[in-house]
Protein backbone atom coordinates (compact mmCIF):
# COMPACT_ATOMS: atom_id res chain seq x y z
CA UNK A 1 0.00 0.00 0.00
CA UNK A 2 2.77 2.44 0.94
CA UNK A 3 4.71 1.57 -2.14
CA UNK A 4 1.66 2.03 -4.27
CA UNK A 5 1.02 5.41 -2.67
CA UNK A 6 4.57 6.58 -3.31
CA UNK A 7 4.36 5.42 -6.90
CA UNK A 8 1.04 7.13 -7.47
CA UNK A 9 2.33 10.35 -5.92
CA UNK A 10 5.45 10.29 -8.06
CA UNK A 11 3.30 9.76 -11.11
CA UNK A 12 1.17 12.77 -10.20
CA UNK A 13 4.27 14.91 -9.70
CA UNK A 14 5.70 13.90 -13.08
CA UNK A 15 2.41 14.59 -14.81
CA UNK A 16 2.23 18.03 -13.27
CA UNK A 17 5.79 18.80 -14.25
CA UNK A 18 5.17 17.74 -17.83
CA UNK A 19 2.08 19.91 -17.88
CA UNK A 20 4.02 22.91 -16.55
CA UNK A 21 6.77 22.44 -19.12
CA UNK A 22 4.20 22.14 -21.89
CA UNK A 23 2.56 25.35 -20.75
CA UNK A 24 5.82 27.20 -20.67
CA UNK A 25 6.67 26.26 -24.21
CA UNK A 26 3.14 26.85 -25.42
CA UNK A 27 3.40 30.44 -24.32
CA UNK A 28 6.92 31.11 -25.50
CA UNK A 29 6.63 29.43 -28.86
CA UNK A 30 3.64 31.40 -30.01
CA UNK A 31 4.25 34.50 -32.03
CA UNK A 32 3.57 37.81 -30.41
CA UNK A 33 5.27 39.71 -27.68
CA UNK A 34 3.89 39.34 -24.18
CA UNK A 35 4.57 43.03 -23.72
CA UNK A 36 2.85 44.04 -26.92
CA UNK A 37 -0.23 45.21 -25.13
CA UNK A 38 1.65 47.29 -22.59
CA UNK A 39 3.47 48.99 -25.40
CA UNK A 40 0.23 49.50 -27.25
CA UNK A 41 -1.29 51.29 -24.26
CA UNK A 42 1.18 54.13 -24.32
CA UNK A 43 4.35 54.81 -26.19
CA UNK A 44 7.38 53.59 -24.32
CA UNK A 45 10.99 54.44 -24.71
CA UNK A 46 13.26 51.61 -25.64
CA UNK A 47 14.86 51.91 -22.19
CA UNK A 48 11.54 51.42 -20.49
CA UNK A 49 10.91 48.40 -22.66
CA UNK A 50 14.32 47.02 -21.84
CA UNK A 51 13.70 47.47 -18.12
CA UNK A 52 10.38 45.70 -18.37
CA UNK A 53 11.94 42.93 -20.39
CA UNK A 54 14.57 42.53 -17.74
CA UNK A 55 11.87 42.52 -15.09
CA UNK A 56 9.99 39.69 -16.76
CA UNK A 57 13.19 37.96 -17.85
CA UNK A 58 12.25 38.24 -21.47
CA UNK A 59 15.71 39.44 -22.46
CA UNK A 60 17.29 36.13 -21.64
CA UNK A 61 17.62 33.12 -23.91
CA UNK A 62 14.87 30.52 -23.76
CA UNK A 63 16.72 27.95 -21.63
CA UNK A 64 17.50 30.42 -18.91
CA UNK A 65 13.96 31.78 -19.05
CA UNK A 66 12.89 28.23 -18.51
CA UNK A 67 15.18 27.75 -15.52
CA UNK A 68 13.83 30.94 -14.06
CA UNK A 69 10.31 29.70 -14.57
CA UNK A 70 10.96 26.37 -12.91
CA UNK A 71 12.84 27.98 -10.05
CA UNK A 72 9.98 30.39 -9.51
CA UNK A 73 7.49 27.56 -9.63
CA UNK A 74 9.41 25.63 -7.03
CA UNK A 75 9.25 28.62 -4.69
CA UNK A 76 5.60 29.15 -5.38
CA UNK A 77 6.32 32.29 -7.38
CA UNK A 78 4.10 32.63 -10.42
CA UNK A 79 5.37 36.00 -11.54
CA UNK A 80 3.72 39.40 -11.47
CA UNK A 81 0.54 40.42 -13.19
CA UNK A 82 1.13 42.90 -15.98
CA UNK A 83 -2.29 44.42 -15.52
CA UNK A 84 -2.50 44.67 -11.74
CA UNK A 85 1.25 44.88 -11.02
CA UNK A 86 0.62 42.45 -8.20
CA UNK A 87 2.12 38.99 -7.66
CA UNK A 88 -0.08 36.39 -9.31
CA UNK A 89 -0.13 34.27 -6.17
CA UNK A 90 -1.61 37.18 -4.23
CA UNK A 91 -4.28 37.68 -6.86
CA UNK A 92 -5.14 34.00 -6.80
CA UNK A 93 -5.33 34.00 -3.04
CA UNK A 94 -7.71 36.97 -3.11
CA UNK A 95 -9.96 35.40 -5.71
CA UNK A 96 -9.89 31.82 -4.51
CA UNK A 97 -12.58 32.01 -1.78
CA UNK A 98 -15.27 33.23 -4.17
CA UNK A 99 -14.41 30.50 -6.65
CA UNK A 100 -14.36 27.87 -3.96
CA UNK A 101 -17.79 28.96 -2.80
CA UNK A 102 -19.24 28.76 -6.30
CA UNK A 103 -17.38 25.61 -7.32
CA UNK A 104 -18.14 23.91 -4.02
CA UNK A 105 -21.83 24.66 -4.31
CA UNK A 106 -21.90 23.27 -7.82
CA UNK A 107 -20.00 20.14 -6.81
CA UNK A 108 -22.40 19.64 -3.95
CA UNK A 109 -25.39 20.05 -6.25
CA UNK A 110 -23.97 17.71 -8.86
CA UNK A 111 -23.06 15.05 -6.40
CA UNK A 112 -26.31 15.02 -4.51
CA UNK A 113 -28.90 15.81 -7.12
CA UNK A 114 -26.90 14.31 -9.99
CA UNK A 115 -26.14 11.08 -8.20
CA UNK A 116 -29.70 10.73 -7.04
CA UNK A 117 -31.21 11.43 -10.45
CA UNK A 118 -28.73 9.15 -12.20
CA UNK A 119 -29.50 6.29 -9.82
CA UNK A 120 -33.20 6.91 -10.26
CA UNK A 121 -32.79 6.67 -14.02
CA UNK A 122 -31.08 3.32 -13.69
CA UNK A 123 -33.87 2.01 -11.50
CA UNK A 124 -36.43 3.17 -14.06
CA UNK A 125 -34.27 2.09 -16.98
CA UNK A 126 -35.97 2.59 -20.33
CA UNK A 127 -39.08 4.11 -18.76
CA UNK A 128 -40.27 7.60 -19.70
CA UNK A 129 -38.64 9.17 -16.61
CA UNK A 130 -35.27 7.77 -17.62
CA UNK A 131 -35.61 8.94 -21.18
CA UNK A 132 -36.74 12.41 -20.22
CA UNK A 133 -33.99 12.88 -17.71
CA UNK A 134 -31.45 11.67 -20.26
CA UNK A 135 -32.63 14.12 -22.86
CA UNK A 136 -32.83 17.02 -20.45
CA UNK A 137 -29.40 16.42 -18.98
CA UNK A 138 -27.89 16.00 -22.43
CA UNK A 139 -29.51 19.22 -23.54
CA UNK A 140 -27.91 20.89 -20.53
CA UNK A 141 -24.59 19.51 -21.69
CA UNK A 142 -25.11 21.21 -25.05
CA UNK A 143 -25.86 24.63 -23.59
CA UNK A 144 -23.06 27.19 -23.71
CA UNK A 145 -22.75 28.30 -20.11
CA UNK A 146 -22.17 31.95 -20.96
CA UNK A 147 -25.31 32.10 -23.04
CA UNK A 148 -27.47 30.44 -20.38
CA UNK A 149 -25.92 32.80 -17.85
CA UNK A 150 -26.73 35.83 -19.93
CA UNK A 151 -30.30 34.77 -20.55
CA UNK A 152 -30.87 33.99 -16.88
CA UNK A 153 -29.26 37.24 -15.79
CA UNK A 154 -31.53 39.08 -18.16
CA UNK A 155 -34.75 37.21 -17.36
CA UNK A 156 -34.46 36.51 -13.64
CA UNK A 157 -32.15 39.34 -12.71
CA UNK A 158 -33.26 42.28 -14.82
CA UNK A 159 -36.69 41.60 -16.25
CA UNK A 160 -38.32 39.92 -13.29
CA UNK A 161 -36.01 41.40 -10.66
CA UNK A 162 -36.12 38.19 -8.65
CA UNK A 163 -32.46 37.71 -7.89
CA UNK A 164 -29.32 39.77 -8.16
CA UNK A 165 -27.57 39.03 -11.43
CA UNK A 166 -24.16 40.56 -10.89
CA UNK A 167 -21.37 40.23 -8.38
CA UNK A 168 -21.29 38.45 -5.06
CA UNK A 169 -22.18 41.19 -2.62
CA UNK A 170 -24.78 43.92 -2.81
CA UNK A 171 -22.82 47.18 -2.78
CA UNK A 172 -25.78 48.93 -1.15
CA UNK A 173 -25.79 46.60 1.80
CA UNK A 174 -25.29 48.76 4.88
CA UNK A 175 -22.01 48.24 6.64
CA UNK A 176 -23.93 47.52 9.82
CA UNK A 177 -25.61 44.44 8.34
CA UNK A 178 -25.18 41.36 10.49
CA UNK A 179 -23.66 38.06 9.56
CA UNK A 180 -27.07 36.61 8.75
CA UNK A 181 -27.97 39.38 6.34
CA UNK A 182 -24.56 39.16 4.71
CA UNK A 183 -24.76 35.39 4.25
CA UNK A 184 -28.24 35.70 2.84
CA UNK A 185 -27.04 38.36 0.43
CA UNK A 186 -24.19 36.15 -0.79
CA UNK A 187 -26.50 33.16 -1.05
CA UNK A 188 -28.92 35.16 -3.20
CA UNK A 189 -26.09 36.20 -5.47
CA UNK A 190 -24.89 32.62 -5.61
CA UNK A 191 -28.11 31.10 -6.93
CA UNK A 192 -27.92 32.09 -10.59
CA UNK A 193 -24.25 31.33 -11.26
CA UNK A 194 -24.43 28.05 -9.35
CA UNK A 195 -27.59 27.02 -11.15
CA UNK A 196 -26.09 27.86 -14.53
CA UNK A 197 -22.93 25.96 -13.86
CA UNK A 198 -24.88 22.97 -12.55
CA UNK A 199 -27.17 22.80 -15.54
CA UNK A 200 -24.27 22.58 -17.95
CA UNK A 201 -22.30 20.06 -15.92
CA UNK A 202 -24.72 17.82 -14.05
CA UNK A 203 -25.25 15.57 -17.06
CA UNK A 204 -21.81 14.02 -16.63
CA UNK A 205 -22.50 12.96 -13.06
CA UNK A 206 -25.95 11.70 -13.94
CA UNK A 207 -24.78 9.62 -16.85
CA UNK A 208 -21.89 8.21 -14.91
CA UNK A 209 -24.07 7.27 -11.97
CA UNK A 210 -26.69 5.86 -14.28
CA UNK A 211 -24.21 3.55 -16.00
CA UNK A 212 -22.61 2.50 -12.74
CA UNK A 213 -26.00 1.80 -11.23
CA UNK A 214 -27.20 -0.18 -14.25
CA UNK A 215 -24.10 -2.33 -13.95
CA UNK A 216 -24.60 -2.73 -10.22
CA UNK A 217 -28.25 -3.68 -10.60
CA UNK A 218 -27.20 -6.50 -12.91
CA UNK A 219 -24.76 -7.95 -10.41
CA UNK A 220 -25.55 -11.37 -9.02
CA UNK A 221 -25.36 -10.05 -5.47
CA UNK A 222 -28.35 -7.86 -6.15
CA UNK A 223 -30.24 -10.97 -7.11
CA UNK A 224 -29.00 -12.56 -3.90
CA UNK A 225 -30.28 -9.59 -1.93
CA UNK A 226 -33.71 -9.97 -3.52
CA UNK A 227 -33.70 -13.72 -2.94
CA UNK A 228 -33.02 -13.07 0.74
CA UNK A 229 -36.32 -11.26 0.95
CA UNK A 230 -34.95 -7.76 1.49
CA UNK A 231 -37.22 -4.87 0.68
CA UNK A 232 -36.85 -3.40 -2.77
CA UNK A 233 -35.69 -0.13 -1.25
CA UNK A 234 -32.95 -1.86 0.62
CA UNK A 235 -31.93 -3.89 -2.42
CA UNK A 236 -31.66 -0.79 -4.58
CA UNK A 237 -30.27 1.82 -2.25
CA UNK A 238 -28.11 -0.32 -0.04
CA UNK A 239 -26.88 -3.19 -2.15
CA UNK A 240 -26.81 -1.74 -5.65
CA UNK A 241 -26.30 1.95 -4.98
CA UNK A 242 -23.57 1.56 -2.36
CA UNK A 243 -21.40 -0.40 -4.75
CA UNK A 244 -22.21 1.85 -7.68
CA UNK A 245 -20.88 4.83 -5.76
CA UNK A 246 -17.29 3.72 -6.10
CA UNK A 247 -16.97 4.51 -9.79
CA UNK A 248 -18.65 7.83 -9.16
CA UNK A 249 -15.96 8.83 -6.69
CA UNK A 250 -13.67 8.91 -9.68
CA UNK A 251 -15.75 11.64 -11.14
CA UNK A 252 -15.45 13.76 -8.03
CA UNK A 253 -11.72 14.10 -8.53
CA UNK A 254 -12.26 14.87 -12.18
CA UNK A 255 -14.66 17.64 -11.33
CA UNK A 256 -12.39 19.37 -8.86
CA UNK A 257 -10.97 21.64 -11.59
CA UNK A 258 -14.45 23.02 -12.13
CA UNK A 259 -13.55 25.41 -9.37
CA UNK A 260 -11.35 27.27 -11.85
CA UNK A 261 -12.07 26.11 -15.35
CA UNK A 262 -15.76 25.48 -15.50
CA UNK A 263 -16.43 28.87 -14.13
CA UNK A 264 -14.42 31.07 -16.49
CA UNK A 265 -17.51 31.85 -18.54
CA UNK A 266 -20.04 31.81 -15.76
CA UNK A 267 -18.00 33.98 -13.42
CA UNK A 268 -17.33 36.33 -16.29
CA UNK A 269 -20.97 36.69 -17.18
CA UNK A 270 -22.16 37.13 -13.61
CA UNK A 271 -19.16 39.22 -12.65
CA UNK A 272 -18.47 36.78 -9.84
CA UNK A 273 -15.25 37.92 -8.15
CA UNK A 274 -13.43 34.61 -8.47
CA UNK A 275 -10.59 33.08 -10.45
CA UNK A 276 -12.74 32.57 -13.52
CA UNK A 277 -13.53 36.21 -14.04
CA UNK A 278 -9.90 37.04 -13.23
CA UNK A 279 -8.87 34.72 -16.04
CA UNK A 280 -11.45 36.09 -18.43
CA UNK A 281 -10.20 39.63 -17.79
CA UNK A 282 -6.61 38.51 -18.14
CA UNK A 283 -7.40 37.19 -21.59
CA UNK A 284 -8.69 40.42 -22.98
CA UNK A 285 -5.80 42.18 -21.26
CA UNK A 286 -3.23 39.64 -22.53
CA UNK A 287 -2.08 39.35 -18.95
CA UNK A 288 0.09 36.28 -19.46
CA UNK A 289 1.36 35.70 -15.94
CA UNK A 290 -2.23 35.57 -14.72
CA UNK A 291 -3.36 33.20 -17.49
CA UNK A 292 -0.34 31.09 -16.74
CA UNK A 293 -1.04 31.09 -13.02
CA UNK A 294 -4.66 30.09 -13.55
CA UNK A 295 -3.62 27.34 -15.96
CA UNK A 296 -1.08 26.02 -13.49
CA UNK A 297 -3.68 26.02 -10.77
CA UNK A 298 -6.14 24.21 -13.04
CA UNK A 299 -3.50 21.63 -13.95
CA UNK A 300 -2.61 21.09 -10.32
CA UNK A 301 -6.28 20.57 -9.53
CA UNK A 302 -6.61 18.05 -12.35
CA UNK A 303 -3.56 16.14 -11.21
CA UNK A 304 -4.42 16.51 -7.54
CA UNK A 305 -8.01 15.48 -8.21
CA UNK A 306 -6.85 12.36 -9.99
CA UNK A 307 -4.49 11.53 -7.17
CA UNK A 308 -7.14 12.12 -4.55
CA UNK A 309 -9.59 9.95 -6.45
CA UNK A 310 -7.24 7.00 -6.62
CA UNK A 311 -6.27 7.33 -2.99
CA UNK A 312 -9.87 7.66 -1.87
CA UNK A 313 -10.81 4.72 -4.02
CA UNK A 314 -8.06 2.60 -2.51
CA UNK A 315 -8.97 3.69 0.99
CA UNK A 316 -12.71 3.18 0.67
CA UNK A 317 -13.09 0.05 -1.36
CA UNK A 318 -12.64 -2.93 0.93
CA UNK A 319 -11.44 -4.95 -2.04
CA UNK A 320 -8.38 -2.79 -2.51
CA UNK A 321 -8.11 -1.72 1.12
CA UNK A 322 -7.34 -5.13 2.47
CA UNK A 323 -5.81 -6.63 -0.60
CA UNK A 324 -2.74 -4.46 -0.39
Amino acid at each position, binding site marked *: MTRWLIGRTAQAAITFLVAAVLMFFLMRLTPGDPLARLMGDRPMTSEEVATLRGLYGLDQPLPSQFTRFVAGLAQGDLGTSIEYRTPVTTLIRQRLPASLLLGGTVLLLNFTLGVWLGALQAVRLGKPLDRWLSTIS*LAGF*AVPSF*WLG*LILAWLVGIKWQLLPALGMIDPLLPASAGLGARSLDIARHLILPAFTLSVVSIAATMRYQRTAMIDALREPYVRTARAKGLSERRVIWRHAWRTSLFPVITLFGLWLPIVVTGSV*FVEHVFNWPGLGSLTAKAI*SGRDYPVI*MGASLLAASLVVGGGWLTDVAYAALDPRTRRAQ
Partner: protein
Amino acid sequence: MLTLVGLVLIAIAAPMLLPDPLAQPDILQGVNQPPGAKHWFGTDQLSRDVLSRVVTGARISLTIAFLAVAVSVTLGAMVGLVAGYWGGWVDAVLMRIVDGALAIPRLFVLLLVVAAWESLPLLVFILLLGTTGWFGTSRLIRGEVLRLKQEPYVRAAEALGAHRIRIVLRHLLPNTAGPLLVAATLGVGNVVLLEAGLSFLGVGVRPPTPTWGGMILDSQEILFVAPWTSIFPGLAIVITVLAVNLFGDALREAVDPRHA
Protein backbone atom coordinates in the same frame (compact mmCIF):
# COMPACT_ATOMS: atom_id res chain seq x y z
CA MET B 1 -29.79 12.43 -36.86
CA LEU B 2 -32.30 14.21 -39.04
CA THR B 3 -31.58 17.43 -37.24
CA LEU B 4 -27.92 16.96 -37.99
CA VAL B 5 -28.45 16.36 -41.69
CA GLY B 6 -30.76 19.36 -41.74
CA LEU B 7 -28.15 21.55 -40.07
CA VAL B 8 -25.43 20.57 -42.46
CA LEU B 9 -27.74 21.12 -45.40
CA ILE B 10 -28.71 24.54 -44.15
CA ALA B 11 -25.09 25.42 -43.65
CA ILE B 12 -24.16 24.31 -47.15
CA ALA B 13 -27.18 25.83 -48.82
CA ALA B 14 -26.95 29.10 -46.93
CA PRO B 15 -25.68 31.22 -49.82
CA MET B 16 -28.52 30.00 -51.99
CA LEU B 17 -31.22 30.44 -49.39
CA LEU B 18 -30.23 33.91 -48.40
CA PRO B 19 -29.64 36.63 -50.91
CA ASP B 20 -27.47 38.35 -48.37
CA PRO B 21 -25.19 35.94 -46.57
CA LEU B 22 -22.97 38.58 -45.00
CA ALA B 23 -26.05 40.36 -43.78
CA GLN B 24 -25.82 43.89 -45.01
CA PRO B 25 -27.45 46.43 -42.75
CA ASP B 26 -31.10 47.01 -43.50
CA ILE B 27 -31.18 50.74 -42.97
CA LEU B 28 -34.81 51.08 -43.94
CA GLN B 29 -36.09 48.71 -41.28
CA GLY B 30 -33.80 50.09 -38.62
CA VAL B 31 -31.80 48.65 -35.77
CA ASN B 32 -32.86 46.19 -33.08
CA GLN B 33 -36.08 45.19 -34.81
CA PRO B 34 -37.96 42.39 -33.03
CA PRO B 35 -38.67 39.24 -35.02
CA GLY B 36 -41.26 39.90 -37.70
CA ALA B 37 -42.34 39.03 -41.21
CA LYS B 38 -39.38 40.62 -42.91
CA HIS B 39 -36.72 39.57 -40.44
CA TRP B 40 -37.82 36.32 -38.87
CA PHE B 41 -35.20 36.50 -36.13
CA GLY B 42 -35.17 40.31 -35.93
CA THR B 43 -32.23 42.61 -36.56
CA ASP B 44 -29.24 43.59 -34.46
CA GLN B 45 -27.71 46.91 -33.44
CA LEU B 46 -26.29 47.38 -36.91
CA SER B 47 -29.70 46.50 -38.39
CA ARG B 48 -28.33 43.24 -39.76
CA ASP B 49 -30.70 40.31 -40.19
CA VAL B 50 -30.14 37.89 -37.31
CA LEU B 51 -31.45 34.89 -39.25
CA SER B 52 -28.91 35.44 -42.01
CA ARG B 53 -26.15 35.77 -39.51
CA VAL B 54 -27.19 32.66 -37.58
CA VAL B 55 -27.27 30.62 -40.78
CA THR B 56 -23.95 31.98 -41.99
CA GLY B 57 -22.63 31.35 -38.49
CA ALA B 58 -23.62 27.72 -38.92
CA ARG B 59 -21.36 27.55 -41.95
CA ILE B 60 -18.44 29.05 -40.08
CA SER B 61 -18.93 27.13 -36.86
CA LEU B 62 -19.50 23.76 -38.50
CA THR B 63 -16.61 24.21 -40.92
CA ILE B 64 -14.30 25.08 -38.05
CA ALA B 65 -15.55 22.15 -36.02
CA PHE B 66 -15.27 19.56 -38.78
CA LEU B 67 -11.81 20.66 -39.88
CA ALA B 68 -10.50 20.93 -36.34
CA VAL B 69 -11.82 17.50 -35.47
CA ALA B 70 -10.33 16.05 -38.64
CA VAL B 71 -6.96 17.36 -37.50
CA SER B 72 -7.27 16.16 -33.94
CA VAL B 73 -8.61 12.73 -34.84
CA THR B 74 -5.80 12.19 -37.32
CA LEU B 75 -3.20 13.22 -34.78
CA GLY B 76 -4.83 11.20 -32.03
CA ALA B 77 -5.03 8.10 -34.20
CA MET B 78 -1.42 8.43 -35.26
CA VAL B 79 -0.05 8.89 -31.77
CA GLY B 80 -2.32 6.20 -30.36
CA LEU B 81 -1.32 3.69 -33.02
CA VAL B 82 2.36 4.41 -32.62
CA ALA B 83 2.29 4.32 -28.83
CA GLY B 84 0.10 1.25 -28.63
CA TYR B 85 1.85 -0.75 -31.30
CA TRP B 86 5.47 0.13 -30.71
CA GLY B 87 5.16 0.07 -26.94
CA GLY B 88 8.31 0.30 -24.85
CA TRP B 89 9.86 3.66 -24.24
CA VAL B 90 8.12 5.28 -27.22
CA ASP B 91 4.83 4.49 -25.55
CA ALA B 92 6.07 5.56 -22.13
CA VAL B 93 7.30 8.95 -23.34
CA LEU B 94 4.26 9.66 -25.49
CA MET B 95 1.87 8.75 -22.76
CA ARG B 96 3.65 10.85 -20.14
CA ILE B 97 3.34 13.81 -22.49
CA VAL B 98 -0.31 13.04 -23.12
CA ASP B 99 -0.86 12.76 -19.36
CA GLY B 100 0.67 16.17 -18.88
CA ALA B 101 -1.32 17.69 -21.71
CA LEU B 102 -4.53 16.18 -20.41
CA ALA B 103 -3.84 17.77 -17.07
CA ILE B 104 -4.29 21.23 -18.57
CA PRO B 105 -7.95 21.87 -19.32
CA ARG B 106 -8.30 22.36 -23.06
CA LEU B 107 -9.78 25.79 -22.59
CA PHE B 108 -6.61 26.93 -20.86
CA VAL B 109 -4.33 25.40 -23.45
CA LEU B 110 -6.21 27.37 -26.05
CA LEU B 111 -6.24 30.53 -24.00
CA LEU B 112 -2.49 30.35 -23.53
CA VAL B 113 -1.93 30.06 -27.25
CA VAL B 114 -4.76 32.05 -28.72
CA ALA B 115 -4.31 35.11 -26.58
CA ALA B 116 -0.91 35.66 -28.16
CA TRP B 117 -2.34 36.50 -31.55
CA GLU B 118 -3.31 40.06 -32.19
CA SER B 119 -5.56 39.03 -35.06
CA LEU B 120 -6.03 35.37 -35.45
CA PRO B 121 -6.22 33.96 -38.99
CA LEU B 122 -9.09 31.49 -39.30
CA LEU B 123 -6.85 28.71 -40.53
CA VAL B 124 -4.52 29.08 -37.57
CA PHE B 125 -7.49 29.06 -35.22
CA ILE B 126 -8.69 25.79 -36.74
CA LEU B 127 -5.22 24.28 -36.47
CA LEU B 128 -4.97 25.35 -32.86
CA LEU B 129 -8.35 23.81 -32.04
CA GLY B 130 -7.25 20.66 -33.82
CA THR B 131 -3.84 20.30 -32.25
CA THR B 132 -5.19 20.73 -28.74
CA GLY B 133 -7.86 18.09 -29.04
CA TRP B 134 -6.11 14.84 -29.77
CA PHE B 135 -4.79 13.80 -26.37
CA GLY B 136 -7.86 11.94 -25.23
CA THR B 137 -8.30 10.29 -28.61
CA SER B 138 -4.73 9.00 -28.58
CA ARG B 139 -5.39 7.42 -25.19
CA LEU B 140 -8.49 5.72 -26.49
CA ILE B 141 -6.83 4.42 -29.64
CA ARG B 142 -3.79 3.21 -27.72
CA GLY B 143 -6.09 1.15 -25.51
CA GLU B 144 -7.82 -0.32 -28.54
CA VAL B 145 -4.50 -1.17 -30.14
CA LEU B 146 -3.23 -2.87 -27.00
CA ARG B 147 -6.33 -5.02 -27.08
CA LEU B 148 -6.15 -5.72 -30.81
CA LYS B 149 -2.48 -6.64 -30.59
CA GLN B 150 -3.50 -9.78 -28.77
CA GLU B 151 -5.92 -10.81 -31.49
CA PRO B 152 -4.96 -13.95 -33.39
CA TYR B 153 -5.06 -12.34 -36.82
CA VAL B 154 -2.60 -9.63 -35.81
CA ARG B 155 -0.33 -12.23 -34.30
CA ALA B 156 -0.61 -14.32 -37.43
CA ALA B 157 0.27 -11.35 -39.62
CA GLU B 158 3.27 -10.70 -37.41
CA ALA B 159 4.33 -14.30 -37.59
CA LEU B 160 4.11 -14.16 -41.36
CA GLY B 161 6.60 -11.33 -41.28
CA ALA B 162 4.31 -8.52 -42.38
CA HIS B 163 5.86 -5.11 -42.11
CA ARG B 164 5.01 -3.10 -39.01
CA ILE B 165 3.59 -0.20 -40.96
CA ARG B 166 1.50 -2.60 -42.97
CA ILE B 167 0.13 -4.23 -39.84
CA VAL B 168 -0.74 -0.87 -38.39
CA LEU B 169 -2.44 0.37 -41.53
CA ARG B 170 -4.08 -2.84 -42.68
CA HIS B 171 -5.08 -4.49 -39.44
CA LEU B 172 -5.09 -2.01 -36.60
CA LEU B 173 -6.35 1.21 -38.12
CA PRO B 174 -9.52 -0.24 -39.71
CA ASN B 175 -10.41 -1.92 -36.44
CA THR B 176 -10.16 1.27 -34.47
CA ALA B 177 -12.42 3.06 -36.91
CA GLY B 178 -15.51 2.58 -34.73
CA PRO B 179 -14.25 4.22 -31.54
CA LEU B 180 -12.49 6.82 -33.66
CA LEU B 181 -15.75 7.76 -35.33
CA VAL B 182 -17.49 8.08 -31.98
CA ALA B 183 -14.66 10.22 -30.62
CA ALA B 184 -14.84 12.40 -33.72
CA THR B 185 -18.57 12.93 -33.42
CA LEU B 186 -18.44 13.87 -29.78
CA GLY B 187 -15.41 16.00 -30.61
CA VAL B 188 -17.44 18.07 -33.05
CA GLY B 189 -19.93 19.02 -30.34
CA ASN B 190 -17.09 19.87 -28.05
CA VAL B 191 -15.34 22.10 -30.57
CA VAL B 192 -18.55 23.93 -31.43
CA LEU B 193 -18.89 24.83 -27.76
CA LEU B 194 -15.23 25.72 -27.38
CA GLU B 195 -15.20 27.88 -30.46
CA ALA B 196 -18.31 29.67 -29.31
CA GLY B 197 -16.74 30.21 -25.90
CA LEU B 198 -13.51 31.60 -27.30
CA SER B 199 -15.33 33.83 -29.74
CA PHE B 200 -17.46 35.02 -26.85
CA LEU B 201 -14.31 35.92 -24.94
CA GLY B 202 -13.20 37.82 -28.01
CA VAL B 203 -10.20 35.64 -28.77
CA GLY B 204 -11.68 33.30 -31.35
CA VAL B 205 -13.05 34.26 -34.72
CA ARG B 206 -13.01 38.05 -35.01
CA PRO B 207 -15.80 40.20 -36.36
CA PRO B 208 -17.26 40.90 -38.81
CA THR B 209 -17.27 37.16 -39.61
CA PRO B 210 -20.47 35.97 -37.97
CA THR B 211 -20.05 33.11 -35.50
CA TRP B 212 -22.59 32.10 -32.90
CA GLY B 213 -20.31 32.87 -29.99
CA GLY B 214 -19.32 36.19 -31.49
CA MET B 215 -22.96 37.12 -32.04
CA ILE B 216 -23.73 36.47 -28.41
CA LEU B 217 -20.78 38.65 -27.46
CA ASP B 218 -22.00 41.45 -29.73
CA SER B 219 -25.49 41.26 -28.36
CA GLN B 220 -24.39 41.44 -24.76
CA GLU B 221 -24.82 45.21 -24.64
CA ILE B 222 -28.24 45.17 -26.25
CA LEU B 223 -29.55 42.09 -24.47
CA PHE B 224 -32.19 44.06 -22.63
CA VAL B 225 -33.55 45.84 -25.68
CA ALA B 226 -33.07 43.12 -28.27
CA PRO B 227 -32.83 39.73 -26.54
CA TRP B 228 -33.49 37.92 -29.83
CA THR B 229 -30.00 38.83 -30.98
CA SER B 230 -28.71 36.55 -28.25
CA ILE B 231 -31.41 33.91 -28.00
CA PHE B 232 -31.25 32.64 -31.57
CA PRO B 233 -27.52 32.07 -31.91
CA GLY B 234 -27.57 30.40 -28.47
CA LEU B 235 -30.37 28.09 -29.51
CA ALA B 236 -28.46 27.29 -32.66
CA ILE B 237 -25.52 26.14 -30.54
CA VAL B 238 -27.71 24.07 -28.25
CA ILE B 239 -29.50 22.34 -31.09
CA THR B 240 -26.30 21.63 -32.99
CA VAL B 241 -24.40 20.27 -30.04
CA LEU B 242 -27.36 18.26 -28.78
CA ALA B 243 -27.90 16.73 -32.21
CA VAL B 244 -24.23 15.88 -32.55
CA ASN B 245 -24.06 14.35 -29.09
CA LEU B 246 -27.23 12.31 -29.54
CA PHE B 247 -25.84 11.06 -32.81
CA GLY B 248 -22.54 10.24 -31.10
CA ASP B 249 -24.38 8.32 -28.41
CA ALA B 250 -26.32 6.31 -30.93
CA LEU B 251 -23.10 5.65 -32.79
CA ARG B 252 -21.41 4.46 -29.65
CA GLU B 253 -24.20 2.04 -28.96
CA ALA B 254 -23.93 0.72 -32.48
CA VAL B 255 -20.17 0.41 -32.33
CA ASP B 256 -19.84 -0.89 -28.81
CA PRO B 257 -22.71 -3.09 -27.72
CA ARG B 258 -21.52 -2.95 -24.12
CA HIS B 259 -22.98 0.51 -23.88
CA ALA B 260 -26.36 -0.48 -25.20
